[in-house]
């Protein structure tokens, strides 16, 4: 009897030990693609409302062809969770003071010269190679259906080898900049490493590398993105984000009729 009890206790203990050992592994395996994408979104985007200075340097054949500076104000939409963005152009001088406002499908471009707010379509570009979506704060997990396609070791934007989870993103909304995205996220830290953006016809539009991780609003975030054209690899835009600042952004700012009054720095 006592021997039987001892055997049962050993079996139960062994089972408990196996369960305890297996739990972290099973939890890791159970981490969904959506959770990984949300974690990567949280690395790129500071929490809450904030502003950030974005500078873009565009190169053709290694020669600088354009340089522009923007001030981006981002605030999560309470209903959709997606960010609303207000962008002020600071440079070049011919564009200084112009504004772009985005709330999903609702986009406005404001030119202080003629005090006109012009409604534009999500596909209309104002920034050269970088799409509106590249400079605006977005939560990819809100706009894309995501699945895991495997683990890969890839070279990051600074030449180091990274163990990554490769995600496949398919757009769920028509107003997003890219119909499909392949997204490589560092398996250990959830840091975005690189992305490839495609049209609905599977044509490669761009490759982006997220690099130069630095402290910004309480976490390590990529402050540079290198965007390489899908057809012409010598067409490159380096995008740098600095000056991340948590700030209250009133809802009043994020509508068309406020644009002529917008003066925040």
């Amino acid at each position, binding site marked *: 009897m006592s021997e039987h009890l001892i055997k049962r206790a050993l079996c139960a203990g062994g089972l408990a030990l196996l369960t305890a050992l297996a739990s972290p592994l099973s939890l890791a395996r159970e981490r969904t693609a959506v959770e990984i994408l949300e974690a990567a979104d949280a690395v790129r985007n500071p929490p809450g409302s904030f502003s950030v200075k974005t500078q873009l340097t565009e190169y053709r054949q290694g020669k600088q062809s354009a340089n522009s500076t923007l001030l981006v104000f981002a605030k999560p939409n309470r209903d959709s969770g997606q960010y609303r963005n207000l962008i002020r152009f600071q440079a070049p*001088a011919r564009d200084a003071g112009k504004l772009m406002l985005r709330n999903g499908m609702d986009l406005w471009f404001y030119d202080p010269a003629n005090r006109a707010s012009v*409604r534009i379509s999500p596909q209309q570009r104002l920034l050269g190679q970088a799409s509106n979506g590249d400079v605006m704060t977005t939560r990819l997990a809100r706009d894309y259906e995501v699945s895991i396609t495997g683990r890969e070791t890839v070279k990051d934007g600074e030449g180091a080898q990274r163990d990554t989870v490769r995600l496949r993103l398919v757009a769920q909304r028509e*107003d997003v900049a890219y119909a499909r995205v392949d997204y490589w996220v560092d398996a250990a830290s959830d840091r975005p490493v690189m992305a490839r953006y495609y049209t609905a016809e599977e044509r490669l539009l761009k490759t982006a590398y997220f690099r130069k991780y630095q402290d910004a609003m309480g976490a390590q975030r990529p402050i540079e993105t290198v965007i390489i054209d899908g057809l012409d690899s010598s067409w490159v835009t380096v995008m740098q984000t600095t000056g991340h600042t948590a700030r209250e952004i009133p809802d009043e700012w994020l509508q068309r009729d406020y644009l002529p009054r917008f003066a925040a720095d």
Partner: protein
Amino acid sequence: MMRTSTSPGLSLRLRRALLLAAWALPAHVAAQTAPPVDAPALDPLALQIQPAEADARIGLRMEAWAQGVDLRDGASNGDDMLGRAVLDFRREWRINEALRFGFSDRMEAVEGNADAADRQRNALRELYLNWQATPSWYVDAGRINLRQGVALGYNPTDWLRENAVVMRSSQNPAALRENRLGAVMLRAQAVDTRGSAQLALIPQLSDEDTSGSRFDDQFWSLGLERTNRHRAALFRVSPRTGERVVADFTAFTRAGDAPQLGSNLSYTASDSLILQMEWSGGRRAALPAAGETNSATDWFNRIAIGGAWTSPVGLVLTLEHHYAGDALSETEWNAWRGVQGSGARALGEMRRGVTERQDLLVRHYWFGRAAWDRAFGVEQLDLSAFVRRNAWDHSSMMQLEGTWHVSDRLDVSAMVNRMIGNDSSEFGSSPVRSALAVYLRWFM
């Protein structure tokens, strides 16, 4: 086809200026052209961000134009070559947390190879104080360019456009909106999460006789007879709607005229297509038929309807139809086209008034525009063209423009205007058949 100048002196100066520009620009471009970075084996990841120039903009833009015009037979008075210089300043200053001050002015001088073309004009476009009374209430006082309307080529709800343009260096509707005079007004606006509402009160500040579209265009003239000839009030409400549909509603009343109503509606049909409609309606006098000086007052509608489509390469195509019920019917316009003598003078005066008010002469027009920034993938190149077509006589006005961004602060542009139609048509009867302009713009 361009005519040769009949005034060798100025023509020579202009040619010298053009030659100088032609010589200087490639030199400037060459100066900007640094040797490529490791061009044979380019590593995109080796490229770095370049420091941006500090935001030291003062808000001044300088323009230098050389223009040649091709005049209709019999219209030539020798002024077929023009030089134009522009100082354009626009800036806003923050006085304290609640107060801002704005100033906008355009000084323009035109010199032709005949004295008749010479003209200098300063346009004080805006001068205002803005006070943020509460987080969502604003009060503005002064001269303000209050622009309304979603359409591109014709804005029936843009009530304050009438007579506000003092110089027309370009026929581009966007340029006309940019260069016009604001109206002196007291305006209150509420902006909150539900949308916005505003009321503008416009006092009468001039009692000049402006019949026949006669205005005081002396150099320093404020042009108040253009913008503040009558007391007026404007109300506009813009409720917050969903992502796809945006609407606003407006009412305008002016001393001596019946109240007018209007609305703007835009709809994002897809990620590349915007549909828009602009409507106004109210009792007003129609344009007179030939041989008449007055016409009956009735309710008339004005409409601009159309859409803008963005192509995959970034070319934006806009097509609009413009309608004004108070403009001339096809029969009335055909009758006007045949008038002679005093009737022709009356037609000229009526057309000048229509142009100053930025109204329509006949009831139906088509308007098309193509705009391609970074055309053909060239970062420095912007191209645009528009055409306005009279639906009755099928005459057209078109303008093509190309701009090359030489540097962050310098643009060089070329612009071609062309009037198409027979001699009795609206655009074909214009004194200027075509014009070519080359101009430089410096942004400071």
